[in-house]
């Protein structure tokens, strides 16, 4: 259990081996109801409150296919450049597990709704890699087991287990790539970029919440190595529990270094499921399957075939939104961005936020400077995604407007934003509570100017002699005295007026 894997240095791994990737992504659709019954499809909730005879697998209950889920599956397939089946069936995947109400999963097997597609994926430096899609098929999610009393929350050592079937029957689309070869040292980066691109695509399609932290987007990474120059794929492992984009990259990289060490030492890779540990960045062996599991697939007799008409498919093709990469191209032109600027924007995950801020009235430059420069740092400090920060594009646009109207200085504006991020309310409320208005009362400023001139008589004399450049020192002193809340331009005008 506690044995530490030997790892090979990454540079040596990619010098000696070619990695082959296969990525399986499960997407929970955010349809109103479940895949085969009328229960609400909601994340969480009191255990076993979104259940009925069908999703509990009660004797006699029957499934009915959710038409909206089929529609989403077809739209995903079309967006992934897949062919859409004219006729396909569900199958039963038979295996016993307590959180599976029927002890079979209703899933598509050899007749997926969508197949043979591709997705172009851009890496950080702009390189585009085409990832071939094997299939996208429909299935249902399982319930959840909660293991109580054990040290780790896993089944081993638990005293008892609780079952929650709220998730049972939630519609899932499984998207499977063909083997991804030829990516060499960039394999981990390609894996992350693929999942990122897929996530953005699914978001644009508005078919899923695509929240990896909540499990509505889940990635299993298959990794194998083959000696450089050979073409026969090595034995692969399948790593599960990869719950963030960063983890996708780390898990692939770890498996490459682990498998390389095993192979270099003359060992064999065990075909197995491995579990990714977020805290250590390593994978560990799950149950090793002595024999391949036999799921005894057969066509689901309780359902009729799904046969989407070509008219419907074409109609759905017409509903595809502007795809994320097309949108980026358009935005780059409209906002006049360099490739590097666009990449920064994309890498920061800020495209939508900046666009929304522009929509709310800011210029692209103003919006970018907030989201890409300042707020990205704030997000990193907090260890969250940019979109998860407690501030909205509308709020940023309002702060920008206040700066433009002279009611806030840039420095004050940052304080206002910090206040919003800290949960102090709307920008206006933060300004009020923290007293962050620009001091625009001339009599108050004049008093501060007089005080500063009196404190530095030699500087005052220079200004009176016409050396206007010297005014900066007085302006600085006044700004200091007013704690930055004065408008520097106005202070300068007052200084010069006083000395003339």
């Amino acid at each position: 259990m506690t044995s530490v894997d030997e790892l090979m240095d990454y540079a040596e791994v990619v010098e000696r081996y070619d990695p082959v990737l296969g990525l399986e992504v499960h997407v929970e659709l955010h349809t109103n109801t479940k895949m085969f019954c009328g229960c609400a499809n909601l994340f969480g909730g009191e255990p076993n409150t979104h259940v009925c005879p069908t999703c509990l697998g009660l004797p006699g209950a029957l499934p009915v296919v959710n038409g909206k889920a089929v529609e989403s599956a077809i739209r995903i397939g079309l967006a992934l450049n897949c062919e859409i089946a004219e006729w396909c069936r569900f199958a039963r995947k038979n295996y016993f597990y307590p959180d599976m109400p029927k002890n079979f999963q209703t899933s598509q097997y050899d007749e997926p709704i969508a197949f043979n597609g591709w997705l172009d994926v851009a890496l950080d430096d702009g390189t585009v890699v085409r990832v071939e899609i094997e299939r996208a098929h429909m299935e249902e999610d399982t319930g959840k087991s909660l293991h109580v009393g054990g040290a780790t929350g896993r089944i081993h050592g638990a005293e008892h287990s609780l079952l929650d079937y709220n998730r049972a029957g939630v519609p899932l689309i499984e998207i499977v790539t063909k083997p991804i070869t030829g990516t060499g040292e960039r394999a981990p980066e390609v894996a992350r970029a693929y999942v990122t691109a897929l996530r953005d695509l699914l978001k644009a399609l508005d078919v899923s919440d695509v929240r990896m932290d909540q499990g509505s987007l889940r990635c299993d990474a298959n990794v194998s190595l083959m000696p450089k120059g050979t073409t026969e794929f090595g034995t692969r492992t399948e790593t599960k529990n990869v719950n963030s984009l960063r983890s996708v990259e780390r898990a692939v990289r770890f498996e490459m270094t682990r498998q390389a060490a095993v192979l270099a030492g003359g060992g064999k890779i065990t075909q197995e499921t491995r579990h990714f540990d977020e805290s250590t960045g390593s994978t560990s062996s799950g149950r090793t399957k002595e024999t391949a599991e036999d799921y005894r697939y057969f066509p689901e007799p309780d359902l009729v075939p799904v046969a989407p008409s070509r008219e419907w498919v074409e109609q759905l093709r017409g509903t595809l939104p502007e795809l994320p990469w097309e949108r980026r191209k358009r935005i780059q032109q409209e906002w006049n961005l360099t490739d590097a600027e666009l990449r920064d924007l994309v890498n920061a995950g800020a495209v939508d936020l900046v666009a929304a801020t522009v929509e709310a009235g800011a210029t692209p430059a103003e919006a970018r400077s907030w989201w890409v420069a300042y707020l990205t740092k704030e997000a990193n400090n907090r260890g969250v995604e940019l979109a998860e920060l407690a501030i909205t594009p509308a709020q940023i646009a309002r702060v920008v407007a206040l700066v433009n109207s002279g009611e806030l200085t840039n420095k004050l504006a940052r304080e206002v934003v910090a206040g919003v991020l800290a949960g102090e309310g709307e920008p206006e409320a933060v300004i009020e509570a923290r007293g962050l208005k620009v001091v625009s009362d001339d009599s108050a400023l004049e008093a501060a100017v007089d005080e500063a001139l009196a404190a530095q008589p030699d500087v005052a004399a220079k200004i009176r002699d016409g050396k206007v450049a010297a005014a900066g020192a007085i302006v600085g002193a006044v700004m200091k005295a007013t704690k930055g809340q004065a408008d520097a331009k106005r202070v300068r005008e007052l200084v010069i007026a006083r000395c003339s």
Partner: protein
Amino acid sequence: MSDLIRSTAAELAAKIASREVSAVEVAQAHLDRIAEVDGSVKAFLHVDAEGALAAARRVDEDVAAGNAPASPLAGVPLALKDVFTTEGVPTTCGSKMLEGWRPPYDATVTRRLKEAGVVILGKTNMDEFAMGSSTENSAYGPTRNPWDLDRIPGGSGGGSSASLAAFEAPLAIGTDTGGSIRQPGSVTGTVGVKPTYGGVSRYGLVAFSSSLDQAGPCARTVLDAALLHEIIAGHDPLDSTSVDAPVPPVVAAAREGANGDLTGVRVGVVTQFSGEGYQPGVLRSFEAAVAQLKQLGAEIVEVSCPSFDYALPAYYLIAPSEASSNLARFDAMRYGLRVGDDGTRSAEEVMSLTREAGFGAEVKRRIMIGTYALSSGYYDAYYGSAQKVRTLISRDFESAFATVDVLVSPTTPTTAFRIGERTGDPMAMYKADLCTIPANLAGNAAMSVPSGLSDEDGLPVGLQIMAPALQDHRMYRVAAAYEAARDAALGHTVISQVPQLEGAAR
């Protein structure tokens, strides 16, 4: 009282509607009869006297208020096979696995019966999970045939058919996966109909083999079966395999048939269903029935359906395959029996111990056959081949129905056998369904109507009539014409010959 329990459903409904008798009196008469004879027949697993009387009272109130009857069978009692879910009322499927389970929901069939004002007396005995041809596989002991209490009432729906023959109920509901409505009908001298697949909703019918299971009406007359058929049939959005088409006009066909004219109707005799293994008295009864049809004006032709010879083996791969998956849900996690949960065992061990204790031998046998047939490496040879046979059987039906309107055969090769006679020989038991299975595999309509008594043992014989999918009315017309002619020739109904059971009680 005797009058009420011997009446047809149509007569009872008319008397209740005209307030000649109350629905409560009718229900009580049948409950009394059950109390009197069911100790020896054992047709019922659960009698819901309270629920039945409450339902009857509602019908009486409705009639008293001057409302039109909820249906042509409002107030008529019925025996429901224990494979349909009934909200709050025990549903066991004849298995220990579900002992004590009270479903939280009604099957669509149950709901339609209730909405029609039909009075559900209780739940009838059956082979465990509908697997069997004698009810001997019930975990609660066999039902006995009212014609001879030492003989089987057929199966799996032996409880439903026996309740009709014992005059415990004028109507019953069965399910037919390979003959479980028709074969019990045949051996008890009652009418049993397997409608077109998808004609009656399977929602709430605990699945044995999803692609074969079909619920249908059981009665003592063809017209009563037709009236019940129209109540339970029709599209159900909760069952994806339910046919979205108008219900075939079976009541009109039964009434038309009763006029006794079959001129222009072409009847095909399936040549595969005779010869070795068929009891001579059964074949003689069948031949007499065919002669009767000819007298009524029907044109008789012989039809060969060569693939029917492979129906039985194909069935015993497909049905167990689906069953092995359908019955996987009985795992002690959410409902039903739980064995070995002592705080030390894993869920997996509890599942295993429960299934070991909860399923009977025949159910286990079929789960094992099905699991094997679906296994990788065997799938193509077994399940795959069986599906091909299924296609061939459908083609045989298609070409037969291109030349004839209905097909006929004996319903089952023998009359009722003795309890225990075939329990040690599964193959002998399976052969009871030889003639009924093809219609399940092809999904078309089929029924059994009594063709009198076998001359060698005095036990009932059934005539099977098969029709194309969604042409259920064709067989009702032929059956009703035959029934009228048969009774006229005999001078009495077949069911009137069933021995008296009074005195047999307790």
